């Protein structure tokens, strides 16, 4: 069979883009262009312009420390993070990421100088195309993150903080930042604010309501006992309370926003510092809800692109093996009883789900047709995926697309953990009865509003000691951790300037289960 080898070579008409492991700017550019063609023409991706920045491992550690952003205001907690990662890295316990990508316009990808050319190819496909497409198209990023302005804002924040340090001293600034950091998870808007109604609209609405009331007036209602009592008949103090709450905009779940706007004793620069922490926190809010999809999207895209590059003969067999080795360790999912287990690997789950969508679109089984009648066999996997990447977040994506095949592949099972019982119970496994239960339970596990405690500002004692009253709405009896709760409240009262109370209220019954109190400092 002397001809087979020749045929294979003829199939691969093009020369590999690079050989060997060293990278240079020329091959980076060639690879980028080749990937770009595949991404635009074959996968239909839509990305921000890309800026690739080559950095050293030390600079990578720097970037780790400032939570992945290229610049950040100064605070000791970033120094702590740096020391932590540096120790792990020097001990060899932790490798460094091959890249960091920043959701900005242009999209900045940091790539490490130590990477081999194969890794750089992988990184470009992963970050510059996968993440980048996701950043540009997902609805949460579009709604919440101003990719064009983030770098400018951070540089403003850094300068502002250092100016404050010069003017008011390190300690004063640090006190505010420490306290604001303690509340940063509760410094985000979860819903877009209602736009303030203008006078004309208000009047129009009142008129139409009057018109409706006149049109539907029926004198008989007057004779019904207790009619119209609920709203109208609150006594005066209750009315006043309600009025005050309304004016303060209570209840408010964005604690930092409330403190920034309403805390009685903060100076303007202190409010601005709180605002900076709040804005940075808000910038990260979508990322927390999209981690699995974001990584899944990037992993799926790099896998697809690398395979297509290989099919076209643009990368060598050796590179492909190196890539597969790295890829398979990225999507490795240890079982729950494995010492390496630390929760579900977002890369693994995201990649598996997206590959499975591709399979369902192309080669559906009967089961898929039953579970996903609208996409099974539709033949356009990238259309479906692009739609999913644009319009879902982790929680809804799982609820919509977690297929029985993936549940079986991961051998997922659901355990009910009731603190009042001595043992855990297995509620569902990968069988007919379990698929839907596991799907909805896993989706809840990714729901940020369940993962993070639901804490809101409910009241301020305006007439008394100006105490700020927070409420933690308890779901399924899960209380706050006592120790951290007390320290967070101390920080909150440092910002508020007066005492802070927190009630743990059972959401279902409105019963107060527990109360914490932090007195204002120095009183």
């Amino acid at each position, binding site marked *: 069979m002397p001809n087979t080898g020749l045929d294979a070579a003829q199939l691969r008409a093009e020369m590999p883009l690079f050989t060997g492991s060293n990278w240079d700017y020329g091959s980076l550019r060639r690879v980028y262009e080749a990937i770009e063609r595949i991404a635009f023409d074959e996968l239909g991706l839509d990305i921000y312009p890309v800026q690739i920045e080559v950095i050293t491992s030390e600079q990578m550690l720097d970037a780790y420390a400032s939570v992945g952003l290229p610049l950040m205001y100064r605070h000791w907690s970033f120094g702590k993070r740096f020391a932590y990662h540096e*120790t792990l890295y020097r001990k060899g316990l932790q490798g460094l990421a091959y890249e960091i990508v920043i959701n900005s316009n242009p999209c900045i990808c940091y790539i490490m100088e130590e990477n081999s050319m194969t890794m750089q190819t992988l990184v470009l496909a992963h970050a510059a195309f996968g993440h980048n497409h996701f950043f540009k198209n997902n609805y949460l990023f579009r709604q919440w993150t101003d990719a064009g302005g983030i770098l400018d804002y951070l540089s403003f924040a850094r300068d502002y903080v250092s100016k404050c340090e010069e003017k008011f001293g390190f300690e004063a600034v640090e006190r505010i930042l420490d306290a604001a950091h303690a509340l940063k998870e509760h410094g985000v808007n979860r819903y877009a604010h209602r736009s303030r109604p203008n006078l004309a609209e208000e009047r129009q609405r009142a008129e139409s309501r009057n018109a409706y009331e006149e049109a539907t007036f029926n004198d008989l209602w007057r004779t019904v006992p207790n009619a119209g009592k609920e709203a109208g008949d609150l006594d005066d103090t209750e009315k006043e309370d309600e009025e005050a709450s309304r004016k303060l905009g209570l209840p408010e779940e964005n604690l930092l926003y409330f403190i920034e706007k309403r805390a009685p004793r903060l100076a303007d620069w202190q409010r601005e510092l709180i605002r900076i922490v709040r804005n940075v926190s808000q910038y990260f809010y979508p990322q927390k809800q999209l981690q699995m999809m974001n990584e899944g999207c990037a992993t799926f895209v790099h896998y697809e692109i690398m395979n297509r590059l290989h099919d076209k003969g643009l990368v060598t067999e050796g590179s492909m093996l190196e890539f597969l080795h790295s890829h398979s360790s990225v999507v490795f999912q240890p079982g729950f009883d494995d010492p390496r287990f630390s929760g579900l690997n977002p890369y693994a789950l995201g990649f598996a789900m997206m590959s499975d969508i591709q399979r369902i679109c192309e080669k559906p089984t009967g089961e898929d047709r039953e579970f996903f009648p609208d996409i099974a066999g539709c033949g356009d996997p990238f259309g479906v995926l692009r739609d999913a990447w644009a319009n879902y977040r982790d929680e809804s994506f799982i609820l919509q697309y977690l297929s029985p095949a993936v549940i079986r592949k991961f051998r997922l099972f659901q355990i009910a953990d009731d603190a009042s019982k001595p043992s855990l119970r297995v509620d569902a496994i990968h069988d007919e009865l379990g698929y839907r239960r596991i799907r909805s339970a896993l989706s809840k596990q990714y729901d940020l509003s369940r993962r993070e405690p639901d804490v809101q500002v409910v009241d301020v004692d305006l007439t008394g000691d100006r105490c700020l009253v927070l409420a933690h709405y308890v779901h399924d009896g899960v209380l706050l951790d006592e120790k951290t709760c007390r320290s967070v409240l101390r920080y909150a009262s440092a910002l508020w300037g007066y005492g802070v109370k927190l009630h743990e209220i059972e959401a279902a019954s409105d019963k107060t289960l527990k109360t914490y109190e932090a007195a204002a400092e120095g009183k």
Partner: protein
Amino acid sequence: MNIVDRRPNPKGKSLSNRQRFLGRARVEVKSAVQEALRKRKVADIGHGEKVAIPTRGISEPIFHHNRRTGKTDHVVPGNKEYIRGDEIPRPQGGEGRGGSEGSPDGSGDDSFEFTLSKEEFLDMFFEDLELPDLIKKSLKDTVAVDLQRAGYAVTGNPSNLSIPRTLRNSMGRRIALHRPKLSEIAALRQALEEALAAGQDDEVARLTRELERLERRSKIIPYIDPIDVRYRRFDRVPRPNTEAVMFCLMDVSGSMTEAMKDLAKRFFMLLHVFLIRRYRHVDVVFIRHTSTAEEVDEETFFYSRETGGTVVSTALEKMLEIARARYPTDRWNIYGAQASDGDNYGADSGRCVALLGGDVLPLCQYFAYVEVGDGMGGSLTGLSRDSDLWRAYSEVAPAHAHFAMRRVGDPAQIFSVFHELFAKGGVRA
């Protein structure tokens, strides 16, 4: 697409954050440093150290759910044997409960481990210590001066002539006064010769005049004029003595056990590290003595064994001899450290006192006497009899503020004793 090479960017972007962090954790780090010092070998003292500090001062609390309350569902992978309705005993310590990944910054841990650099480590350790009498009293009379550049002068020593500066001035002047260039004159000469050859008389006359004018001009405008000349100027600044010599005196007679020598060594090493942080250059002289004293190298000093009696004064004499011969006090800061078990030949103690008070102490910046015990803490209790040397030195101590004496019983005390000796505004024995 744009590729930017960020590698040449300045390093250490996190440095100020790191300093802030260390400042924040100062108290914890300091006690961890001392703890680490207690355990490590003295020879390693100059290296960085991994320290673990409790998270107390550096925790970043946020609202957390308490995982031990209420009802939660977990979905975890890797089911091998379970079917619906199985009961699993609750794992200890939250292992395998899934869904509850640790916080990324490790704030869940009880202690936080990271590595201090060598400088940070020594800074922490020596933070509240200072060298007594750092500046020599005799400094005012000394001639130790440094030359420091101080611009240029119009007068000076020929060896300080600054050629670049002089030629720069010369060139400026030549250009301003239109001194003809050599090339211009050469070109004119050639033109003249050509004109001569061609026999153009008018042209020859004009060129000759022109040539004369240029040559006269280049004579009256000199290439280098005295006003161009510049000299490098130096200021003489008095410089504090930056050289120190440390005399290590040790009794190596049979009564000194290995443990005692080890203690002494630890003390010498600490003093050495401390001195090199303050002085640009530190010499160390090792003098060992039995009934006679000799200068030896470090290896011999610590590790060779000797037998014989003990006459301490010989060591002091040796020290004086070396100091006078090699380390004049106007250039050198002299530090002495003596370690001994306190034994001395009975009649010698008086001589020691005389030598120390009369000759050695006036020479020294600081002199420390460390009496090493056998680790049983016998002499530390104060119950046992003071040693000969201790009693003798006690006479000298009150009169000299820069003389200190301490007793050390076991390695753990070395650091506290050292600390005591050099504490700011310290205690003197």
